[in-house]
């Protein structure tokens, strides 16, 4: 089996398109980072303050800051340090619950969302007790920094990793048609069971591409911004928030996350999405037996997911909206709010993790079914 895996990797080496795609992706991501260069002085100021005085804004830090901060730091962070407060103290999530359930009317979905915000109240009380809101993070520009990393770069990296994985999965199937080796391959002892080997190879390469993109892009962004010292800040800092329409709300997560921990968690979830994409491409490629048709079908499916979600919301078909929230593309589009309450988009805690977990099981079952079906179908040359 190892020899077969190595052979599949060698087939990819015959196709330099993957390296080209990765290079273009890194260039694209670099442009996104470069476009946020205005953040550099604010981030470096916050990082310097964190190094000098710690990351938690309290009386000790305020006094030390007042005594020792540079003029630049005072200009950039003075107000933030002076006026920071524990915003979670006394916060009532029932207001959010009422806001999100109002359009739903009395319904089982509304009841689930209410239950979700009751659970979130416990998290809010915990955040209040730990003083998470008082972490400096990147000060007044925390939202911009956080959304650069997790609202733009992370979805880009996940999307690029998924595309690379899909391309690899389809290329490994298509290479046999292009080379005219399908008959030789499927009549061998291994036969049609080469397809899971191809899937394993595609998954390995797709995930490797994703890890490379994530490390280079996010690592490069953190280095470029000088945000290394901010990795220990709590993502639920009062300076971090979510904007949904005309609503601005704190960044409340279902678990305690430092910036580094949140980065790892989103990378892990992103890897699961990439794996889902690869398995789906492999399964559909086996069913359609044509890489181009498979690519078109995947593109159509990806486009349809947010369309279904949007149409359901406009029509007030909230059950459909709730179901559509589990679709992988819709989960990916909300990467900017992963592991938070997610408003009306989710009705259970850790919604995105559950959606991806269920999705992985589903696509794995679909792949198994497609391979079994393929084992009984004629080989098309």
């Amino acid at each position, binding site marked *: 089996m190892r*020899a*077969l895996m190595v*052979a599949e990797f060698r*087939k990819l080496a*015959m196709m330099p398109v993957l390296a080209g795609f990765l290079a273009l992706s890194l260039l694209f991501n670099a442009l996104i980072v470069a476009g946020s260069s205005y953040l550099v002085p604010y981030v470096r100021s916050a990082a310097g303050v964190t190094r000098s005085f710690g990351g938690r804004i309290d009386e000790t830090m305020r006094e030390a800051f007042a005594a020792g901060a540079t003029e630049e730091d005072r200009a950039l962070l003075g107000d933030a340090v002076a006026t920071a407060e524990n915003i979670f103290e006394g916060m009532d999530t029932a207001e959010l619950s009422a806001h999100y359930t109002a359009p739903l009317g009395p319904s089982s979905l509304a009841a689930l969302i209410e239950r979700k915000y009751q659970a979130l109240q416990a998290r809010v009380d915990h955040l209040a007790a730990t003083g998470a809101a008082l972490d400096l993070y990147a000060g007044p520009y925390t939202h911009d920094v956080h959304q650069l990393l997790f609202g733009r770069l992370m979805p880009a990296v996940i999307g690029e990793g998924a595309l690379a994985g899909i391309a690899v999965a389809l290329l490994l199937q298509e*290479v*046999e048609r292009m*080379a*005219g*080796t*399908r*008959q*030789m*391959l*499927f*009549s*061998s*002892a*291994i*036969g049609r*069971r*080469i397809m899971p080997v191809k899937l394993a190879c595609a998954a390995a390469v797709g995930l490797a591409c994703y890890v490379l993109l994530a490390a280079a892009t996010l690592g490069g962004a953190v280095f470029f911004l000088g945000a290394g010292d901010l990795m220990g800040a709590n993502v639920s800092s009062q300076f971090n928030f979510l904007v949904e329409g005309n609503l601005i709300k704190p960044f409340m997560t279902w678990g305690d996350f430092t910036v580094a921990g949140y980065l790892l968690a989103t990378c892990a979830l992103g890897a699961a999405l990439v794996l889902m994409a690869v398995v789906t491409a492999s399964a559909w490629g086996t069913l359609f037996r044509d890489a181009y048709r498979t690519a078109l079908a995947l593109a159509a499916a990806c486009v349809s997911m947010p369309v279904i979600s949007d149409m359901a919301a406009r029509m007030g078909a909230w059950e459909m909206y709730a179901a559509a929230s589990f679709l992988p593309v819709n989960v990916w589009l909300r990467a900017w709010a992963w592991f938070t309450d997610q408003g009306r988009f989710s009705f259970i805690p850790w919604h995105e993790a559950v959606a991806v977990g269920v999705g992985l099981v589903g696509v794995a079952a679909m792949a198994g079914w497609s391979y079994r079906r393929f084992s*009984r*179908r*004629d*080989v098309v*040359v």
Partner: protein
Amino acid sequence: MLELQQVTKRFGERTIIEGASLVCGHGVTGLIAPNGAGKTTLIKMLATLQTPSEGRILLDGEDIYGLGEAYRAHVGYLPQQVGVYPSYTPRRFLRYVAALQRVPRRVADPRIGELLDLVGLAEVADTRMRTFSGGMIQRVGIAQALIADPDILLFDEPTAGLDPRERARFRSVIHGLAATRTVILSTHIVSDIETIAGQIVLIRDGQVKAYQHASELTAPLVGRILEVPLDAPELPGELRLGEREGTAGPVRRIALPQAIAAGELPAGAVASAPTLEDAFLVLYRDAHVDGVDASGPRRGAPWRNWRGFR
């Protein structure tokens, strides 16, 4: 022993093979028919690339699709179109095929050397195949079919692209292998199997019929094959088989409905021993065979097929 039991293959409304029953033991079974008759379909079913619409294919009494890998591990298949990875060398490609056939590396490597010698590619064993001619690719295909030392060999048009010397060599190799193996060789070139095939299988209109020796096909034509000058008058019921340049000028080779005694030969006509190709052209007279219209003029006495094909 390979056995087909009432095997039928349909593609939509089209029936390609109907009710085929056949037994193939050790030796060469030549599968001969015009293009499009169903040879490749039959070979592909034996290679498990296509499944029968009806019927079963058995190896020593067990269904080959049920056996799965246990069957395929004993099969060497040369497809009609041999595909290779252009950036691979023959050695690397054969190593890959060996891995697909679960042949251990320590067994495969020496065998690869032997096979490359056998097919005359030893000198280019480590040359990328993107520069190879069609004949060289075909020889790589023959080598890959033999890599696992299979008990069953399925060859679909194996001599395509080979020059006469290579074709003769191939026939010798196959004849040697067939002593202890089941070899099924599909071709529309009669000379490929004329000298090496024991059982000969013909396919016409989806019907598969086996003959245990070429003489079963040629014996009924004894006394019926003549060569007459090209410009000689047409004989009643004659079927034109071809033309060639004779010693005294161009002649046409014909088949007559009935045997003709030596003393009754028309002027200028010479009796000729029937060949397998003659039998093939007579049997498939309604089919367009390799550019030769074997249908012949339909006048004079009605043509009667002696083997049940109508």
